[in-house]
């Protein structure tokens, strides 16, 4: 058997693939975070809660209305997006003119509230959500057994990430959005309805988080805590990628997913801090992040 760094090549490939799957979640989440940050200058601490909300809505739809995975994949992000938009309209909006730290604190409070509420109603141990029948089972790739659902996660998240990136970097809408972050009043004086754009953006970011949540539901336990566990890691991903860089967020998401996956093989104890260590190194060498523009 071919060996690589002392472990069989097959196992190595398997772990690489698994890292990529994890990376998909990091990428989706950091993408949404980067969009919201890039355009609203708000660190969306509620991103984890919105991710959780996506998964929970999928579960609620299934258990109370019998609505399955596929419709949920559309409905949950839509709902969370609308909720996000409403929050932006009524509350978050008032904070743009202030120091960005207030946005951070507000969304932090929001996250506590949402998670607290779900924990209060549904408890902490989580809810079951089955893999959709169409994607159940697995495929033997020769070097590993790949659950089909996980393959789907990789493919689908890649499509979503690239699609979002295209919209923001390559369309007129995207350039409005980017300009509006810097000087909303001026952009508005050009005749563009900036308040609406910002609402849209926050809604979009929240919807992306929720989408990741629905994708995660069949893999991870649907629990009120699922968001707060992952969000800090995603923050680190965004710092490494360079905040405000959409492509940076995506690529770094996948890269760090893989880095973490490989650490789980070679030195599992460090797998939870490897991302933070990478972050520290990147900060030393490239303070603006791997893809960030100089501040």
């Amino acid at each position, binding site marked *: 058997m071919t060996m690589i760094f002392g472990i069989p090549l097959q*196992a190595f490939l*398997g*772990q690489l693939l*698994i*890292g990529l*799957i*994890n990376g998909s979640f990091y990428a989706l989440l950091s993408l949404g975070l980067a969009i919201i940050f890039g355009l609203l200058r708000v660190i969306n601490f509620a991103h984890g809660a919105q991710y959780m909300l996506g998964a929970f809505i999928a579960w609620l739809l299934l258990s109370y209305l019998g609505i399955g995975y596929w419709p949920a994949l559309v409905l949950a992000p839509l709902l969370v997006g609308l909720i996000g938009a409403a929050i932006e309209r009524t509350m978050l909006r008032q904070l743009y003119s202030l120091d960005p730290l207030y946005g951070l604190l507000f969304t932090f409070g929001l996250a506590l509230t949402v998670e*607290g509420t779900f*924990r*209060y109603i549904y*408890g*902490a*141990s*989580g*809810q*079951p959500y*089955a*893999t959709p029948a169409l994607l159940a089972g*697995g495929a033997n790739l020769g070097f*590993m*057994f790949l*659950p089909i*659902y*996980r393959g789907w996660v990789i493919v689908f998240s890649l499509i979503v990430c690239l699609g979002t990136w295209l919209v923001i970097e390559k369309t007129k809408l995207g350039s409005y959005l980017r300009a509006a972050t810097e000087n909303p009043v001026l952009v508005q004086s050009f005749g563009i309805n900036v308040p609406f754009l910002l609402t849209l953006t926050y809604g979009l970011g929240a919807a992306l988080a929720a989408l990741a949540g629905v994708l995660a539901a*069949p*893999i*991870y*336990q649907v*629990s009120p*805590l*699922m968001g707060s*566990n*992952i969000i800090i890691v995603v923050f680190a991903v965004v710092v490494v990628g360079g905040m405000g860089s959409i492509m940076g967020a995506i690529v770094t998401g996948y890269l760090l997913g893989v880095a973490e*996956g490989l650490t*789980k*093989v070679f030195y*599992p*104890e460090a*797998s*939870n*801090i490897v991302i933070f260590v990478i972050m520290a190194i990147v900060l030393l060498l490239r303070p603006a992040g791997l893809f960030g523009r100089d501040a």
Partner: protein
Amino acid sequence: DASDGKVKIGILNDQSGVYADFGGKSSYEAALMAVEDFGGKVLGVPVEVVTADHQNKPDIASNIARQWYDTEQVDSIMELTTSSVALAVQAISKEKKKIDIVTGAATTELTGKQCSPYGFHWAYDTHSLAVGTGGALVKQGGDSWFFLTADYAFGYSLEENTGNYVKENGGTVVGAVRHPLASTDFSSFLLQAQSSGAKVIGLANAGLDTSNAIKQAAEFGIVQGGQRLAALLFTLAEVHGLGLEAAQGLTLTEGFYWNRDEESAKFGKRFMERTGKMPNMVHAGTYSAVLQYLKAIEKAGTDETEAVAKELHALPVDDVFAKNGTVAPNGRMVHDMYLLEVKKPDESKEPWDYFKVLATIPGKEAFMDPAQSGCELVKS
């Protein structure tokens, strides 16, 4: 007789955090049931139960415990989920000469180096879980093990204890992998466990970590592949959250199962009516602890701590939770534990009908020999 015209019991646990399902508000309900079953009065004075949510913060717990003891005439505190809280409150109880009965926390320290003459450990501990799952499972043929261990003291001690019992019973431990606390993805670790070829994959972790690992094991077809999953700290409440589809075939140890016999089923149904869920060992244990405490007061004829503690040590425990339970000098309540297997969805006949009892582990085997515990109260 009772010192201040009433007997007051405090149920102090996590009601809004990670362990809220484990015990939570339902433990309070269990305590109320015990008081009602006892008749609501002891030595002619009313029994009152108060409760507080320590939010998993030892400082809040310690504050409340002190205030309860000092200004609110609380006579004893029970439940005490989370080991840091349990140890902190036990230390205060010892200092204030008050009784505490822990049902929610797992650490053997409570009846080990940090034991108290007035402190009792009632429902389970890491040792009994290890013996139950490790020892008993080997006898059932699961003789080679691979551990998925949460990377902190609790995980290590579960792994070590269990591993010892596996080896003692003639099994082997082929490997272990340590994962960080609160990992979301276990597939890397599961793949390593899978390729180890071990017959049993022991999950030396707790809470969401265990749930996620089990769920993902199902996804990777590990149980279908012939390996067995054994969770070292997992209860009915969490199996309910996971669903039978994902949890089927899982082996675990609990000190109580509601569908064990007629009496327990009756208790379970009553509990269900009040809380909406079936009791796990923490709930039933709390019920038993309160009941036993009241019995001890009655026997002692006073609620004075020394006397009650003496009776608690002396009286046998015989209720729906424990049959022929005894209390060791270090405060450990010794009773039978059960090795349970989660049913397949089609085997389950009614809601909450989740477990098959694979084996009963006699209390003497399940719990540590007090002489080995390191508790200085044990005269050897």
